[in-house]
């Protein structure tokens, strides 16, 4: 089942190579909808009493090296896989107007989906790494071929090389782990527990560090997000940045629990630095896409703050701070994935309509395009963490969890929240209020087909904000 979910997009990619050019979108959409359908089916048929991994598939793959093909669904990956499968069809819909080299475009997009789904379901290091790297190649070409701006070549190359450097460090770490434990199986590794050298922990951390990203290895991020075409930026910020956080939850928390305890303070400090750095850099940006990129940097770092809190002991507390933080991290991945994807989509629309994305190029758009403005406002408020929206619920959980164990860092991180509010509100003010420049007077409002992409996102964000329990059901029940 999970294999089918993972491979459906890549099969669609093969079909795309065969069908006429005008049908390619439909095939890509069908592939991603099959994945979504399978995901929903699996969530409905989970066995809630069972412990451990469900929908397991375990086949000896390379017996000579002790490598199994092992996939499964559990509390850690259920919600983030749902996010990925939800965003995939929306990304295809968002790229519906891609005319130029559309065959190449959709093939790359489908391969990327497979890479992402595979990363979220793999439970053996070998093919987890395989998908992890596989997701990079199409992203590189998507930015490079279809991106905008002269800077895109550099951005794509930096993005690729930075991530690969991190990945090879991680590979080195896992080869070492295998040498000590004799297995690549995540579940097995977590059970055995490892007693690795700090350098090994650092090597594994490096891979995730670049991917999340955390400061100071984030410098590839803003150029890549700014250069990528809007649907690809949706995918990069919505799903790909979650790969890193998911990696923390899947690898660092269960396998390196001792090391995490030891370095939790450092990790939280790094997360804090990233939160503040991201927020203050976002304040200074004059380009909407870059601003959103730094906002994304800042929001994803909250997740890492939560992960760090998991490493600090909670003896003698009345609340289960670890559980709060963990649920918060999982919900934050979901909430940020949806909100950031929506914002990048809207900024992309703005850019295609006006040809510019500078903060100073707009003004008073709420009068011209009320629906567009409403959607933009709502998504921004979710990013801000306004109550009744998913962002609030998630950040609340993370902060209450981490405050219980590390009050100083958490208080310092709230400064980041404030700065986030400042730059996001400034953005809204500059783009949507004030006098409308002459040239934007007849800008088109959000069309129904565009609404088709934004409305599900908003619906889910409200749903998850009002009733987070529904969405945290799997992560709380299955563990």
């Amino acid at each position, binding site marked *: 089942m999970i294999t089918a979910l993972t491979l459906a997009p890549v099969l669609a990619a093969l079909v795309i190579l065969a069908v006429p050019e005008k049908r390619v979108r439909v095939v890509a959409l069908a592939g991603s909808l099959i994945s979504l359908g399978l995901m929903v089916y699996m969530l409905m048929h989970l066995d809630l009493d069972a412990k451990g991994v469900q929908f397991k598939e375990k086949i000896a793959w*390379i017996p*000579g090296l002790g490598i199994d093909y092992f996939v499964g669904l559990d509390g850690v990956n259920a919600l983030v896989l749902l996010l990925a499968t939800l965003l995939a069809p929306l990304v295809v819909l968002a790229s519906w107007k891609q005319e130029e080299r559309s065959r190449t475009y959709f093939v790359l997009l489908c391969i990327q989906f497979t890479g992402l789904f595979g990363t979220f379901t793999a439970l053996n290091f070998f093919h987890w790494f395989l998908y992890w790297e596989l997701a990079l190649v199409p992203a590189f070409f998507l930015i490079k071929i279809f991106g905008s701006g002269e800077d895109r*070549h550099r951005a794509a190359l930096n993005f690729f090389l930075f991530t690969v450097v991190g990945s090879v460090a991680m590979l080195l770490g896992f080869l*070492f782990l295998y040498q000590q434990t004799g297995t690549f199986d995540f579940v097995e590794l977590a059970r055995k527990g490892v007693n690795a050298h700090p350098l090994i922990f650092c090597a594994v951390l490096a891979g995730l560090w670049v991917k999340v990203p955390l400061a100071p290895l984030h410098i590839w991020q803003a150029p890549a997000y700014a250069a990528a075409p809007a649907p690809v930026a949706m995918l990069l910020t919505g799903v790909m940045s979650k790969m890193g956080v998911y990696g923390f939850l899947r690898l660092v928390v269960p396998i390196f629990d001792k090391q995490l305890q030891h370095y939790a303070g450092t990790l939280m400090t790094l997360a804090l630095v990233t939160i503040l750095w991201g927020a203050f850099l976002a304040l200074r940006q004059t380009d909407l896409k870059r601003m959103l990129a730094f906002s994304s940097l800042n929001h994803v770092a909250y997740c890492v703050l939560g992960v760090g809190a998991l490493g600090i002991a909670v003896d003698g507390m009345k609340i289960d701070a670890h559980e709060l933080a963990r649920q918060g991290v999982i919900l934050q991945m979901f909430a940020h994935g949806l909100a950031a994807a929506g914002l990048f989509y809207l900024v992309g629309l703005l850019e295609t309509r006006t040809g510019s994305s500078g903060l100073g190029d707009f003004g008073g758009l709420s009068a011209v395009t009320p629906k567009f403005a409403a959607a933009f406002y709502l998504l921004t408020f979710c990013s801000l963490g306004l109550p009744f929206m998913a962002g609030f619920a998630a950040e609340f959980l993370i902060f209450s969890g981490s405050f219980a164990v590390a009050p100083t860092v958490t208080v310092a991180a709230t400064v980041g929240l404030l700065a986030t509010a400042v730059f996001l509100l400034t953005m809204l003010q500059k783009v949507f209020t004030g006098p409308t420049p002459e040239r934007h007077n007849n800008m088109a409002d959000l069309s129904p087909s565009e609404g088709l992409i934004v409305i599900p996102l908003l619906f889910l964000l409200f749903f998850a904000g009002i009733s987070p329990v529904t969405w945290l059901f799997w992560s709380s029940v299955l563990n």
Partner: protein
Amino acid sequence: MDYQLIFNALLPDLIVVVSLFVALGVDYGCMRQAGIRDRANKALQICSLGLIGGLVVLVLQLNGTLSLDYSELLDATHGQLMLSPSTLALKWLLFALGLAVLPLAARHMVTVQVSEYFALLLLATLGMGFMVTSRNLLGAFVALEVVSLSLYALCALHQTSRASAEAALKYLTYGGVSSAFLLFGISYLFGVTGELDISQGLLMKEALIRAPMLVTVAYLFILVGLGFKIAVAPFHLWAPDVYQSAPTPVAAWVASGSKIAGVVLLLALLKPVSMPSGNTAIIPMLAILAVVSMAVGNLGALRQINIKRLLAYSAIANAGYLLVAILAFTEEGRAAAVYYAVVYAVATLGAFAVVAVLSDRLGREAQIDDFRGCWKARPWLSLALLIFVLSLAGIPPLAGFVGKFYLFFAAIQSHSQIGHWSEGLYWLVALALGFSVVALYYYLKVLKAVFVSEETCKLDKDSIGWSSGAVILILSVITVGLGVWPGPLIEFIGQFLI
């Protein structure tokens, strides 16, 4: 001596030899007046038939239909013919790759010596077959010389090109010197053991205890000699020129076939000393060669603008990775080296094949920039090139990724406990991984030219012919297949590679 046995054992080679002479005879006898195209096609048909016949007999030998008494054969020939499942499979692979080179050679004839071209290709293939099956120092040397001499001549076949002649001369001089080194090393080994047959390895162990210094010197010379053949830095100076200026199919054959054969021979020669007590002096030598090769290959490739030269530097870098696996001195390491050599050979042969069919009629050496915008005119060939180049770069899910993974895996596994970073091969693997990131840069440069540029491609738009097309298709299917499903081959190598 049982001649029936030897006849059975050598039947594949005999068939190839016969086809070689038939090809020469037909070309000289009845085709003198025909055009070059017809002569090339005829020679291609005859030689392909010969190789296919050889492949069929090899399969019969492999599955036991043509039963052979391996141990008796080994004794009777003093180790010159070690036909085990692993060596037979390697020989099969080399014949199959040789078969893949022939249509590329036929597609664009650079010389009027049509049948000689094919005869020399077959001769090189035969020599490689003997290289992998021989466990006799002298036998292996003769086989290596057969390969080398054929390749020297093949390099010079581009008659109108001065560069081709220059490259061939370079290849000949460097190769001759390296052969001398190799022979010198072999003579030392013979001197200390009194035995040319290295299949047993017992004498070597005694010799190591008796005269360790002499064995070390012998291996130093052997490493220099074989290092030339598989393009290990600092003995790589011939490689870029030869790869660039030789006819592309020949360069492909130098890069793939002779690399596999050379690595297998190196493994066979090192096997007697691959034990903890025996390799103390050899490990640092090999480690230095590995580091220098990876550095020279990867850094040198960064600045190349000629695609074949770039592949040459990539070959040097890959020789360095191979040495990392060889350095493990474990069964696992040997298996990983063979696996890597095979996937490397397939991918590099594929890359050369695409370059050959696209640019051989360009009239000059193909630059990377010549491939700009290639995806528009030749989408399928571009896709194949993408697969081969990404496999060389080690990107999943292609064979090169599994190859690299296995190689580094084996290198780290070779030491049971690693306490410090400088112990074991940990530092070497870290370095190799670092260099493989550097390598991404130049591989991506090629792909960028092919896929990203919007220009119209100036390259050959002729049909590539079904045989070349089939070769490229099969090689790309193998590259993907060995990446997605490497289990069986790894099992096979692990099981039979002794």
